[in-house]
């Protein structure tokens, strides 16, 4: 064969098949750019010198792995779509006398072009966008933005190696496919009669059950720890349910609809129902994949978004002042903790650093874990991790007044109480080892301020008691039950000053060194949190999460959209003949358009709608999980979820519009 023929034929093929090749090449460009950017950020030495960079680096490393795996799977998948469409064309070459090795030659050149355009284009986009995305990332992380424009050779190398290998692998797949194929089969491949799908009742039943079970778990899980352990079970059930929903339940429902003769033999439903049956049979798994992918994106983006937007709130809860010392006190010791001297020493340190205290609050609390009964708590929890256990936290009414300003006048056996699970009780009993306390709940509080570094990982009951006497009695009680493992009383101070961040950190260090002196008595530990340091860490984590969430969300979104586009377009070619027949039998063009848009609408938005339902059920679980990160603003999470869903739907809508147009053009051509 003539030498220049392969390259020119290959180039022509790409151009003629641009409807399929263009999205494919764009995908390559997009994934290459994404991979390059994450790689470049991870290997940027400037980033690594910043505070909280360890987290960022970890996130980016995660990102590299996820995007790498994703690229391999996704490019192989789109390539298989492409080849399916082109089978006929390649078979024709074969029939016309081209040998298989010639076809292989053409395919090699095509891959070469795709690789060149895709990787070069991707790197170019990546390099250009890198700066922009770094700026955005730094903004998210609250890092100072560095100047300069860098090109990361490490990232370029990694991208070129990865994507060249992916394209070589796809080429090998295609070559093997060509080798095995017989031209006659290829020419006929799409005209083979399509068998009608069967109703799979058992699978449908399994689907309904596992969806129901998954949703039930999501709705009934009470504590965050439980949510963490059970989350994957729920996800697993819902994934199974989703596959069954699309493969079996949809067909069972459509077939039942078809049984209803009066409904079925209406113009609107006649074409729609039988068309959907046909479509569901071939696309069910694809739609289920899209649905799960979309759910992942929605959960990921809304979760990371609310985490990020709630960062300030999280920091507030975790570290309510600029400097927060916390001391665990052993109250039985004779050489007790001398609170007043401690406060004096702290004040001295701040003054020595030329600071002025603008706010100083301190309180003492007791927190311990207890088993939970109908309307009582107990300390017999030797048999380890049990679903029915809770955390109890006690504070005196005087300290409560200091923190919240609420005046109360409690008797010895009276408390104010806050708990998610004991809202309707009037009395509670607390059995701790040798002692039993009976409390009357005077008032159920609507909310409770954050206490020390307690998280609401498990169901937590907060109680305000009369005075330190009661607190000490409770301490003694749990000490008698837990012995060595008992909690101590915790003393916490919340200090705000007019110092700069670096000076705040310096003061905190000096306060920490007080643990070397014996004024504290038999202290167990002194922990000094600063807002400045926590803030950097929190933003590095939540910003990194958000960045990854958005970045991966964007990539996954691109993937789902492309899968749908390919599906619709290739279906368009198959539907063309069908619509021609219907037109000959008397189906007006207007109704063709109508029926087309309805079917595409369903295929497009069914996965999104199901994903939205999944997310709605997942919401409670997500809120629980976010509480592990000190995020408790449910309204914010709700808003973020809605916002994400809306954004997602808008992107979807645009792609739907484009696809429906192309599809209609193919069908009515």
């Amino acid at each position, binding site marked *: 064969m003539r030498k220049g023929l392969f390259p020119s034929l290959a180039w022509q093929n790409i151009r003629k098949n641009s409807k399929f090749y263009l999205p494919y090449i764009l995908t390559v460009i997009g994934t290459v750019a994404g991979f390059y950017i994450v790689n470049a950020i991870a290997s940027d030495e400037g980033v690594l010198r910043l505070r909280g960079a360890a987290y960022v680096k970890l996130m980016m490393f995660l990102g590299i792995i996820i995007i790498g795996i994703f690229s391999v799977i996704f490019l192989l998948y789109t390539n298989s779509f492409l080849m399916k469409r082109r089978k006929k064309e390649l078979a024709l070459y074969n029939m016309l006398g081209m040998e298989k090795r010639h076809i292989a030659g053409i395919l090699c050149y095509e891959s070469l072009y795709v690789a060149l355009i895709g990787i070069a284009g991707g790197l170019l986009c990546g390099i250009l966008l890198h700066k922009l995305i770094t700026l955005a990332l730094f903004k998210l992380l609250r890092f100072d933005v560095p100047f300069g424009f860098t090109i990361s050779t490490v990232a370029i190398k990694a991208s070129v190696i990865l994507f060249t290998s992916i394209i070589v692998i796809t080429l090998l797949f295609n070559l093997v496919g060509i080798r095995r194929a017989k031209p006659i089969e290829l020419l006929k491949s799409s005209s083979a*009669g*399509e*068998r*009608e799908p069967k109703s799979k009742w058992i699978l449908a039943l399994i689907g309904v059950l596992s969806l129901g079970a998954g949703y039930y778990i999501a709705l009934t899980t009470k504590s965050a720890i439980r949510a963490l352990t059970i989350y994957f079970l729920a996800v697993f059930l819902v994934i199974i349910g989703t596959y069954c929903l699309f493969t079996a339940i949809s067909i069972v429902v459509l077939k039942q609809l078809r049984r209803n*003769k*009066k409904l079925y*033999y*209406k*113009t609107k439903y*006649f074409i729609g129902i*039988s*068309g959907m*049956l*046909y479509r569901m049979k071939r696309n069910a798994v694809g739609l289920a994949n899209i649905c799960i992918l979309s759910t992942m994106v929605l959960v990921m983006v809304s979760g990371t978004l609310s985490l990020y937007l709630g960062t300030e709130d999280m920091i507030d809860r975790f570290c309510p002042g600029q400097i927060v010392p916390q001391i665990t006190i052993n109250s039985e010791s004779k050489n007790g903790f001398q609170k007043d001297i401690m406060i004096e020493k702290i004040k001295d340190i701040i003054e020595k650093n030329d600071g002025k205290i603008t706010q100083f609050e301190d309180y003492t609390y007791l927190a311990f874990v207890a088993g939970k009964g109908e309307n009582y708590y107990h300390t017999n929890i030797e048999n380890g991790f049990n679903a029915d256990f809770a955390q109890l936290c006690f504070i005196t009414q005087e300290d409560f007044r200091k923190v919240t300003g609420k005046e109360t006048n409690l008797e010895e056996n009276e408390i104010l109480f806050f708990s998610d699970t004991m809202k309707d009780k009037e009395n509670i009993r607390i059995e701790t080892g040798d002692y039993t306390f009976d409390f009357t709940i005077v008032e159920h509080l609507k909310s409770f301020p954050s206490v020390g570094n307690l998280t609401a990982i498990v169901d937590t009951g907060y109680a305000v008691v009369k005075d330190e006497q009661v607190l000490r009695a409770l301490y003694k009680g749990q000490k008698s039950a837990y012995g060595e493992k008992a909690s101590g009383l915790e003393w916490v101070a919340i200090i705000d000053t007019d110092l700069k961040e670096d000076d705040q950190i310096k003061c905190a260090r000096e306060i920490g060194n007080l643990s070397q002196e014996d004024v504290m008595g038999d202290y167990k530990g002194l922990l000094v949190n600063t807002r400045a340091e926590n803030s950097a860490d929190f933003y590095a984590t939540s910003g990194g999460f958000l960045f990854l969430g958005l970045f991966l969300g964007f990539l996954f979104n691109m993937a789902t959209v492309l899968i749908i586009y390919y599906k619709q377009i290739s279906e368009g070619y198959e539907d063309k003949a*069908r619509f021609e*027949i*219907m*037109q*000959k*039998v*008397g*189906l*007006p*063009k*207007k*109704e063709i358009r109508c029926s087309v848009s309805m079917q595409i609408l369903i295929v497009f938005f069914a996965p999104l709608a199901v994903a939205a339902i999944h997310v709605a059920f997942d919401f409670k679980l997500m809120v629980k999980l976010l509480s592990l990160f000190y995020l408790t603003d449910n309204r914010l999470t709700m808003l973020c979820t809605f916002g994400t869903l809306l954004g997602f739907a808008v992107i979807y809508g645009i792609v739907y519009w484009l696809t429906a147009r192309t599809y209609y053009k193919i069908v009515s051509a």
Partner: protein
Amino acid sequence: MMPLLEVKNLKKIYTTRFGGNHVQALTDVSFSVDAGEYVSIMGESGSGKTTLLNILAALDKPTSGDVLLSGKDMTKIKDKDISAFRRDNIGFVFQDFNLLDNFSIKDNIFLPLVLAGKNYKEMEQRIKPLSEKLGITDILNKYPYEVSGGQKQRTAVCRALITNPQIILADEPTGALDSKSTDQLLHLFGKINEDGQTILMVTHSVKAASHAKRVLFIKDGVVYHQIYRGNCSYDEMYQKISDTLTLLTTGGDKNA
């Protein structure tokens, strides 16, 4: 009596997209078909048969000329009404059956009725006698890929007849059938025609054409010749058509 179908001075010129080349598919075609007739149109490839059929089926518009069905000018019907007109008045039988493979045989037959918005009871009433006549009652619940070519074509005939159309247009109906199925189908067409159904068939199979009562020959875009069966047997008709075709080819050469 007014003829059922009247074709007057039909002309169709195809123009390439940028207006460069003109191809004259139909030059000047005129003929008429009375109610209850069984007419075949014959011609070689490229003689304009398919163009003519497409225009008769209102799938294409002529450059000039009229097509009257029961006195109504089909070329003047508005685009949005054309589908309804087609499905109420014309029944189609195609060479490659044109059945939808995602519908059962029964649903394929119902398709035009569903499009016309008929209710299910009426559909059932109509399909019963027809499917018995065509011998497809047993396969009504099967799917197109499960039945033979002859059965598919009879399904298509059933679909064409179920709307009680004024005329059946058949485009090479025997083209994809074996000889036995061809005989069956042609026999069926004869029977339907005896019951009063008007049939217009386009074919280049001499055998198929020989079953018609009248055969029109098209060449170079005009109706060149026609022969009537009268009292001839199928074999005599077959001979007559063959002779005409031979004459047409050689005679055409002389004219050229």
